[in-house]
Every structure is written in C-alpha cells, then in structure tokens.
C-alpha cells in the first residue's frame, strides 16, 4: 500500500495514423481502486494495453510494479480483463478457469491457507458468484455471466495489479453493484485495481478518478474533489461540465 503501482510519463501512442494517447502522465498508487473514465474513443483501452505492455507505443515511459511494462516477470503479477470477454465458449466455465490456472501455476482447489496465497479456481468462481455454473458450457451463459467468467480468470494466481476494461458494461444495476462491492473487497486486500468504465455513476465507488478525453488526461482527482471543483452533485454532470469547460478548469 502506498507504493506506486503504475507510473506513466509522456506516453504517446499512435493508432490508425491518429494519436490515441498524447503525452499522458499518470501515477496509480498501490492498493487503490482507480476508475478510468471517459467517452468511447478517449483512449481508455489503449492506456490499459500500454500498462499491460501489449501496445506498441510511440514514446514515453510506462513502469508497472517497478518494472518496464511488458517485462516477462510481470505476466504473473498483472491480471487483465479485455473489453470483450476473452474466454473459450466451447469449454465449460471450470475448464476455462483450469486452463488459465495451469498457465499461471494457480491451484485448482483452495488449500488449507484459503484466503492467503494464490487464488484457486474454486476461490475465483466463488468471488464472481459462478460456483453453481461451473459445469455449464460458456456459450450457454448470459452476457453478465460471460463477463464474470472473464473476470474470474484474471483473479487467478497472485495478481498484484488488476486491469479491468469495462467489466460492468451491459450488466444490470444489481450485478454492477455486486461487482463493484467485489472490487472494493479486492482492493481492501491490497491489490491495486484499474477499472475503466463509461458509466459515470460508478465513479463514486473509486478512490481516484482519471478522466480521459480525446487522447489526453482531462482530470486526475478524487470523486469528492471532482464534484466540488465542478460545483455539481453527480458524476455525470461533473464529467459533462469538465468536457464542456475543461480548458477553463485547467487554466481558470
């Protein structure tokens, strides 16, 4: 806790001939739940891919857990959930998790030290509430269950940083609420979470908020500060205010 989990300096990424990220600086503290917000196309996914080290970058530096992003030893320490659920639909829920667990060297069943050590297949299923569906084929799951399988695979092993790209998109309010409760629990155990979303009302559940717009960081703040500085009462209005008056905010 308190250490720097992600340190980004002057990051530039060009995709399709246009800047996807333009001179982005960002620091994410360890053990925090940081929300990455912004409209579609703002660069959220690109920023997450850069942190994972799977994005070709044009310039700048990205350090994750004290290492350059993409370092081989980070592959054990960073969990990633892509926007589209990236699991095998022609396997059961449990078979999917067992495969990823084998790669990560995570156990199948929780050991005697349940709650400690690497997260097992059983524990990951428990966390996302898919225990009863473990023998179900993934292709027969609902959209919400599907994204939870994808999330469960990222929890396996001993991730110190979880990068979740829109994990709640398309989910109903009840499920979204329960997932955010899960994220808070994971953060409370010392894991750092970076969660992107374009649903602004989820912002209040974060420790820090990073607002991206048009390839740049518009604001890096806390939920309270965001509301106070914009004189608004909800995150949606605050974001709209920043988008419309953004430059005046930065240079009043």
């Amino acid at each position, binding site marked *: 806790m308190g250490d720097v989990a992600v340190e980004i300096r002057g990051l530039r990424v060009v*995709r399709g001939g246009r800047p996807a990220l333009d001179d982005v600086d960002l620091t994410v503290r360890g053990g925090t739940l940081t929300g990455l917000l912004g409209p579609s196309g703002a660069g959220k996914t690109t920023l997450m891919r850069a942190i*994972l*080290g*799977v*994005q*070709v970058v044009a310039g700048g530096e990205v350090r994750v857990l004290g290492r350059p992003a*993409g370092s*081989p030893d980070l*592959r*054990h320490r*960073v969990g*990633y959930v*892509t926007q*589209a*659920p*990236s*699991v*095998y*639909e*022609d*396997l*059961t829920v449990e*078979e999917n998790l067992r*495969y*990823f667990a*084998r*790669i*990560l*060297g995570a156990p199948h069943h929780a050991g005697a030290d349940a709650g400690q050590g690497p997260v097992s297949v059983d524990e990951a299923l428990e966390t996302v509430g898919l225990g009863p569906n473990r023998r179900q*084929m993934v292709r027969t799951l609902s959209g919400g269950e599907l994204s939870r399988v994808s999330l469960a*695979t990222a929890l396996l092993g001993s991730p110190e940083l979880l990068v979740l790209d829109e994990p709640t998109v398309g989910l109903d309010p009840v499920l979204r609420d329960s997932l955010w409760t899960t994220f808070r629990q994971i953060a409370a155990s010392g894991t750092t979470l970076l969660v992107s979303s374009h649903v602004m009302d989820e912002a209040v559940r974060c420790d820090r908020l990073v607002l991206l717009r048009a390839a740049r960081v518009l604001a890096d703040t806390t939920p309270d500060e965001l509301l106070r500085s914009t004189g608004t009462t909800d995150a949606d209005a605050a974001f709209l205010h920043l988008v419309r008056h953004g430059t005046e905010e930065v240079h009043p």
Partner: protein
Amino acid sequence: MTATALRVLAQLRHDPRTVAMVVVVPVVLLTLLWWIYDDGGPVFQRVGPALLALFPVIIMFLITSITTLRERRSGTLERLLSLPLSKVSFLLGYALAFGLVAVVQAVVASALMLGPLGLETAGPWGLLVLVAVLDSLLAVALGLFVSAFANTEFQAVQFMPAIVLPQFLLCGLLVPRDELPRALEYVSNVLPLSYAVDAMNAVSTQDSPDLTLELSVLVGFVVGVLLLGAATLRRRTP
C-alpha cells in the same frame, strides 16, 4: 505446452461432430476413389498412396488455420500472450493436440486402405502409417503458420487453395516430378508435400524403402514451420 494441448483436446471433446468428420471424411473420399477406379484397379493402386497423404493434409490444414484464427479474433490469444506462457509452448500445445487427432485419422485411413480397399504395398504398413501421420503434422504446422497472415475467416479459407493446391499439382501425382518442366521440378523440390508423396510411393513400391531423406525433410519442415509460426506471434501489437 500440456496445458494448451489439454485445453484444445477438451474443446474437441465438446465438439464430437468435428472429430467424427475429421476421421470419416477421408474414409469416404478414399472409398469413393477406390470405387471410381474400377473397384481398386491399377490406377487406384498407383494414386492411392499419394491421396492417402493428401486428403488428411487438406482437412488438417483447414481445421488448424481456422482454429487459431478464432483464437486471434476472440481476444483469447491477446490475453494468453499477456500471461506467463511461451509462444513456442502455445504452438506446441496445439501441435500436440492436433497431432493426436492426426494419428487417429491416419491410422483409420491407412487401415481402411490396407484392409477393405485392398491397397497393396511392398513396404511395411507401419511405415505407411508413420508417413501419413507426419503428413498430417505438416498440415497442422502449416495451418498454424498461415493463420498468422489471415485477418478474417475468408482469408484463412483461401490459404488452402493458395498454399496446399499448388503443392498438390506439383507433388508428382498428376505428372511424375522428374517429367515436369525443369523450372517446376525445381519448385517441387522445395515443397514439403512432394516429399510426403515420394515417401508414400516408395513405401508402396519398394520392399524396404530408404526414407531417410523424405522423413528428414518432413520433420524439418514441421519443426521449422512451427518455429516460424511462433516468431509471427507478437506480444505487442499496434
């Protein structure tokens, strides 16, 4: 490697129709061949061994190229490459799983040819099966490799006529390789399927054929193409 192989086999277990087709389709095609050539007459005896090599190649090539393309498109490959899984072990996992399928396919097709269809081979039948398995493995490796260059299923499917059919034309089945125009003979000398068919023909016509060259070339291609395939996997993408 075993993690990926077990996962691919689990996927196949959930898809019995594909497995059935992989085994049954060559059987049907070879039987058809036997039938059209005068119930296993001399032409069947001549082209049978080559086609025993070729039919499975076409099928395994298509299956592997589509499967790995699906892995790229579904996002699972990107995720796997962010995990502690080496690129070679990923491809070897696929090769191992599909290799097992290829063994089953080759054994069934060879048993049919040598048994009910009465293909007469001068050489040992075990060697015939071995060559058939190696041919299928070659197709698996080629399929894994070319899927790197396909962005869509449409492109992947077209790699079959683009990569496999020229080899089919030049492998010596239609015109013996040493009777081809000189330039084409040279081309056929560097195509792996030529060696697959040479090996099959040697087993069927010689008592104790020396297949050192053919088998070395086939194994070399399988290993080389798999390594090339691993080199095409990129952890960082634009």
